[in-house]
């Protein structure tokens, strides 16, 4: 459809993958929905293309469609054309598809934990792959940086760590020497330090093997650190494509511009609210003849609701964009800087929470017949004080003991030794990781928020008014009071959870990884909301996260936890400018960042 000028140098080379007018319709519970809407793109050997989009944008479906592995229970209907190394795959039979999967296209999944057969040794699983001879198994395991290939090969998956499993999966995919590798968020389930290693590995391998990589991600900075080109996906359509530097510097589509603005890193301005994308993606209405981004677009004009914008050459860079008013997009970035800074917090020199010498061990392994278990320390003598009105971020990788510390602070668990002192008779409130799972599916939002008004009936005028006020405070429509959690979006669930926490403002709010499973924009929105609420309601806050950038944005102090011990507690800017411990330094070094973003 669109010839890309910057690819002219490569036009002599045949594309590895040519996707043309691809559409996919999946049916869930009898309701068909178009998850991929008429997209076209090419990929060339050695090229890394990032496919960027929020959850629900259809990016995972594209990866699956390219392998012919769309789940059969959703009755997939695929139209258009996928040519992989010269072979047409749309409408091809099972044999062609299997041969393509065997020789041409491989995938690295998002979650390495579930992607290996738990009852089969690594060696057996690798042997099934094309080119799985004994020697190449050993070679490839070694090449992906696994120290002891023989031991790994004979192990069952549950004996390996997440990082090791992801390396095994990469080895298994690469040993078949595929032309195309689909990497579907291969690092989201991993700790930052390991993420960086895996990305390096992928980059080296493509160069060596002439493989093209389609890198599926929701995170533009991860994409930027790796990819040559980017495809921005919104609601199943490509809204912008081009070289990654071009799009990162001069985004031509308002959606890409919004995504870029909403991402935060170690250089983002933490004195004022983060820029966010307006609203949330509306459920797919009939947008066949409209721009699907129009309902959220700050520069939308009446014609955006009437014409579907074609993908055409972008004026801002050498790529392509699907926007009727792309010349307006640069104006967006200038509008952003004028957000009002946060008011200063009056931190008092007393304590809202004091943890002294807190220790905790957890039982491990299987229970013996008499119920005895072995135990392993999770927290070794932690001392931490949070002052009223102050926000402390607790940063650490998985297994560091962050969540345990939060649960002890909340009183959900008792420490083995040491003391927990809370200086308020009204207990702390907790915001858990997954907002949907924290809401009871069979009770309405209003009922659950109202639970904290002890003894006040929701049927009373007063009860409804109080709940309504809380719902408005977190930026929700009071109409949603009577909705069930399944009827509202994840972002709305997150706000409802916050409303429940603050309807009677606690003096201490504990947040357990509240943004770790969220898209960039929703994460930024949530950080803003939390920052706003804690200042308005004068709450102290403990914010547990694995994301140093988020910690820096929200907190007044950062505490770094490693293997159950606090290795560093300091002011956010100080900790990032001059980290005192080697561990903190490695965390900072592993942070992905946008090359065009700042000077770091």
């Amino acid at each position, binding site marked *: 459809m669109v010839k890309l000028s910057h690819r002219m140098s490569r036009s002599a080379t045949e594309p590895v993958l040519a996707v043309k007018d691809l559409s996919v319709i999946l049916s869930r519970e009898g309701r068909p929905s178009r998850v991929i809407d008429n997209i076209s793109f090419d990929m060339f050997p050695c090229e890394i293309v990032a496919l960027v989009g929020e959850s629900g944008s259809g990016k995972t479906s594209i990866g699956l469609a390219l*392998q012919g592995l769309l789940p059969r229970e959703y009755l997939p209907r695929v139209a258009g054309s996928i040519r992989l190394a010269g072979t047409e795959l749309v409408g091809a039979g099972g044999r062609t598809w299997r041969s*393509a*999967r065997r020789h041409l296209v491989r995938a690295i*999944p998002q979650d390495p934990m579930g*992607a290996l*057969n738990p009852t089969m040794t690594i060696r057996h699983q690798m042997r099934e792959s094309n080119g799985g001879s004994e020697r190449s198994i050993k070679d490839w395991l070694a090449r992906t940086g696994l120290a002891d290939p023989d031991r790994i090969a004979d192990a069952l998956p549950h004996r390996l760590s997440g990082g090791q499993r992801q390396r095994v999966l990469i080895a298994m*995919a690469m040993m078949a020497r595929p032309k195309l590798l689909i990497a579907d968020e291969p690092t989201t389930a991993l700790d930052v330090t390991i993420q960086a290693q895996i990305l390096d590995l992928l980059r080296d391998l493509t160069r060596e093997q002439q493989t093209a990589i389609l890198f599926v991600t929701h995170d533009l900075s991860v994409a930027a650190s790796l990819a040559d080109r980017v495809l921005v996906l919104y609601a199943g359509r490509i809204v912008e494509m081009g070289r990654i530097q071009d799009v990162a510097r001069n985004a031509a589509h308002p959606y890409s511009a919004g995504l870029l603005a909403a991402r935060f890193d170690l250089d983002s301005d933490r004195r004022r609210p983060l820029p966010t994308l307006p609203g949330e993606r509306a459920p797919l209405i009939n947008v066949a003849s409209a721009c699907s981004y129009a309902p959220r677009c700050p520069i939308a004009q009446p014609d955006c609701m009437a014409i579907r914008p074609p993908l055409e050459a972008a004026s801002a860079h050498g790529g392509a964009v699907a926007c009727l008013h792309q010349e307006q997009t640069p104006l967006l970035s200038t509008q952003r800087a004028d957000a009002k800074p946060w008011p200063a917090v009056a931190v008092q020199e007393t304590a809202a929470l004091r943890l002294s010498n807190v220790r905790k061990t957890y039982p491990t392994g299987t229970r013996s*017949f008499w119920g005895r278990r072995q135990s392993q320390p999770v927290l070794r003598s932690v001392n931490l004080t949070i002052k009223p009105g102050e926000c402390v971020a607790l940063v650490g990788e998985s297994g560091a003991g962050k969540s345990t510390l939060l649960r002890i602070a909340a009183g959900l668990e008792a420490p083995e030794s040491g003391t927990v002192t809370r200086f308020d008779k009204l207990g702390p409130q907790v915001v858990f990781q997954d907002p949907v799972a924290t809401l009871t599916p069979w009770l309405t939002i209003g009922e659950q928020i109202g639970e904290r008004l002890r003894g006040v009936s929701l049927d009373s005028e007063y009860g409804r008014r109080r709940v309504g006020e809380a719902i408005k405070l977190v930026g929700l429509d009071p109409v949603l009071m009577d909705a069930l959690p399944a009827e509202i979006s994840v972002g709305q669930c997150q706000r409802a959870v916050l409303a429940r926490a603050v309807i009677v403002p606690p003096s201490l709010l504990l947040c357990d990884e509240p943004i770790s499973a969220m898209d960039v924009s929703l994460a930024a929105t949530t950080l803003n909301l939390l920052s706003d609420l804690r200042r308005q309601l004068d709450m102290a806050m403990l914010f547990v996260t694995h994301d140093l950038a988020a910690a820096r944005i929200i907190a007044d102090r950062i505490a770094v936890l490693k293997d159950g011990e606090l290795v560093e507690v300091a002011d956010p800017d100080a900790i990032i400018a001059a980290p005192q411990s080697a561990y903190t330094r490695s965390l900072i070094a592993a942070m992905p960042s946008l090359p065009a973003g700042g000077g770091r």
Partner: protein
Amino acid sequence: MLAYLTKSIVGAVVVLLMMSFIVFGLQSMIPADPARAVAGPNAPPETVEAMRKQLGLDDPAFVQYGRFLSRLAHGDLGTSVRTRQPVSDDIRQYLPATLELGLASIALGAALALVMAVLQFLVPGSGGIRLAMVGVGSTPIFLSALLLSYFFWFRLGWLPGSGRLGYRDFAGPTGLNLLDGILVGRPDVSLDALLHMILPALALALPIGIAVGRSLNGALHEVMSQPYVRTARGKGLSETKVLLRHGLRNAATAPLSMLGLQVRLLFGNLLIVERVFGWPGLGLYTVQAFASADLPAVLGVAIVFGILYILVNTLIEIGQSIADPRISL
């Protein structure tokens, strides 16, 4: 491994103790006076009283239970009211027939389950297949036994419908005719035993096959939507290979447990099937014991079946740990 052995032996002993306790409790519920039963209906009261002493029936309950346990440990299950023989002798006589039939139907049931689940997975079921499966699963065992015997024996005359062997005086070393025929070099006997076994084994295997097959099918559906199956498909393996190598083994745990549950129901079904097909095993023996209120015989059989059930469950646990190496014994 050692820990597992200790655990399973301790578990088995606890279950057996529990069973013996129940059996002892049930025995003492017999409305009729055992002393009078032994002494005879016309014996004078003094004789009955002497007999009571002799049998230890005036001792405290726990002493009697201890004595009962020690008799059990020596393999003494009492005397059958009906056959006037030691129950243990009766059981020794009838057990091989039941063992043969039971093992055959478990094997046949498992095979049916496997075939059905795999077929149903590869060829997604329509309403008709679903109805047929639920239908077979809803058939009371006596109805399926009756229908099988009515059609294949009475109507069509294809298969023998009564007894376990056409040869009258054949007696092999193990008592399992199918095996004995091969052992003593009489393949004709084995064939005849096989033919006799088909109908009753099928009647018993149908409910096992349906229940285990449905469980396996459910487990397969879950397993086959796991990410690691997507990985396997992504390697370009054929659907059959994916199912056999990656699907079945991971789906084995739940259907194996279901097989264990079905073995428990098998004991009840054996009574009916052996009655309908005149199979001279423990089931028929028990049915006759019911008819003549022969409680020692019923309880003796219950204990033996209890031991068999514990054995089967142990085998199933071992099978599960082979299927899934993460389950350590």
